[in-house]
């Protein structure tokens, strides 16, 4: 296919918006999420509002769509412009909600994305008490990928008092973000 890069991505986005087929939607979203891995595509993806698309998909019922969208965000959120855009668009909240997904990839992408989105400004949100508490539990998981990421979150993005506070809280209550089903 001799389409230019922008035209190609545009075609993907259009297909996503127009198609009735769930299967096609999933394929296209996965495709876009993979494109989001490569910084040379970021300008185009922003132009085509794919960031908003990913954020919108986080609240879908379809588990695959959520998984792929979360992966897409994880892939592109390190870029400064993308990061600011996601933070401005109040993206942290739906991402935190993804921590309670039963889909392993979704959860793992969400943990990493929260780390990548943590800035001096956003850390009040990304390292809020319920999140830290959740990470504490994740750090004890038998799932190595999850426990590694959670450990890094606690060690590198939280202060010892924050971790201590969360530890105290979890001793007393069961309130918080549930663990994903194993």
């Amino acid at each position, binding site marked *: 296919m001799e*389409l230019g890069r922008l035209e*190609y991505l545009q075609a993907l986005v259009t297909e996503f918006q127009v198609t009735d087929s769930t299967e096609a939607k*999933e394929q296209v979203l*996965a495709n876009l999420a993979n494109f989001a891995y*490569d910084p040379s595509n970021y300008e185009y993806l922003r132009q085509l509002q794919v960031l908003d698309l990913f954020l919108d998909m986080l609240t879908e019922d379809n588990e695959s769509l959520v998984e792929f969208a979360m992966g897409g965000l994880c892939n592109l959120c390190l870029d400064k412009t993308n990061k600011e855009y996601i933070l401005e668009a109040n993206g942290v909240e739906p991402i935190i909600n993804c921590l309670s997904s039963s889909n*392993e*990839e979704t959860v793992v992408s969400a943990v990493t994305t929260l780390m990548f989105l943590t800035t001096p400004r956003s850390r009040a949100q990304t390292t809020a008490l319920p999140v830290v508490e959740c990470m504490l539990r994740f750090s004890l998981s038998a799932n190595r990928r999850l426990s590694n990421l959670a450990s890094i979150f606690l060690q590198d993005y939280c202060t010892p008092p924050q971790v201590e506070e969360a530890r105290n809280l979890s001793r007393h209550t069961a309130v918080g973000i549930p663990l994903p089903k*194993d």
Partner: protein
Amino acid sequence: AADSSGAPGAPCRHHAQLGACESRAKYREGWRPRAVKVYTINLESRYLLIQGVPALGVMKELVEQFALYGAIEEYHALDEYPAEQFTEVYLIKFKKLQCARVAKKKMDERSFFGSLLHVCYAPEFETVQETREKLQDRRKYIAKATNQRDCFVLKKVEGPKKTPSKNSEQDCPWNSLGSHVATNWDPSCFTSSPGVSHNIAYPSGNQNESLLTSPHYDNNCADISGYFGQNTSLTPSVHPGGHTPPTSLMQQRMVPACNGIDRFMPRTTHLQERKRKREEGNKFSLIGTSEDNTEVVIGPQLPEIPKVDMDDESLNTSATLIRNKLKEVADSVSTSVEKPESSSAKPLVKQRRRI
């Protein structure tokens, strides 16, 4: 999957080989059938799990085959991992993520001693520190690729860990960029992303632009030599299609590596280097054409006479560095004019200016 605990050595959901997607629309059908899967930095890993290895005592041959893609740090059989009859499962740990990526792409679904290999990442084998470094490398790569960070800062971050082997790991982002070029020209690679079984083929000509990042002003010779060492192996696979990036990679090889104390030269951009060489081309008979990548400009070349001699080597170095930086800033205005010239195949022929 039967057991998706995510513990190392146990079958994980992300090891499962998904069926290829049959229903893609024509315009986004790739060259090879691919499954619907999203690759993130969490999924990729230096650790590869290889299933379907015939139980014929061929571990040595297997490792040799994978070693073609890069240095291997560890390997062993995974005896507890469920395997099909008459096959074995192996774990191979590459020194660099980028090598694991390429190895996976090339070896997955490849026939090996009559059996079809299934290769996937095994991030669950990583230690916390390995995962941490993986994420940090990804951060650095993005910062570099999107020009959002000062090169100096990049090096400083790695400061305390500086050893020769570590330096080449620092250059990981560069490696990724380098192999963008290699893989772009590889007819069997169709991914828009640096890697693996992604969904679609895209002839990514535009990607080359991301390779021309800001110059690295770096006082550490070893870093650059290591980088060039790695690039040397990459450039042969690049087809000289007259595009700027392959040329620039070859050109960077021309910057004299540190192979003598008295030959220390501060780093300059490749454009500046070419300009300097063109200006001094007549003086030094040993300098070949800039396009001649078989002739490296090292050797009995007359040392550059410092413009300001401050009678102190380190002061002279600093002065030259500052001077070059000023030159670079001044040159950045004329860069757009330089570019068409640098992409021409015969620099000694009269330059054509792009209108």
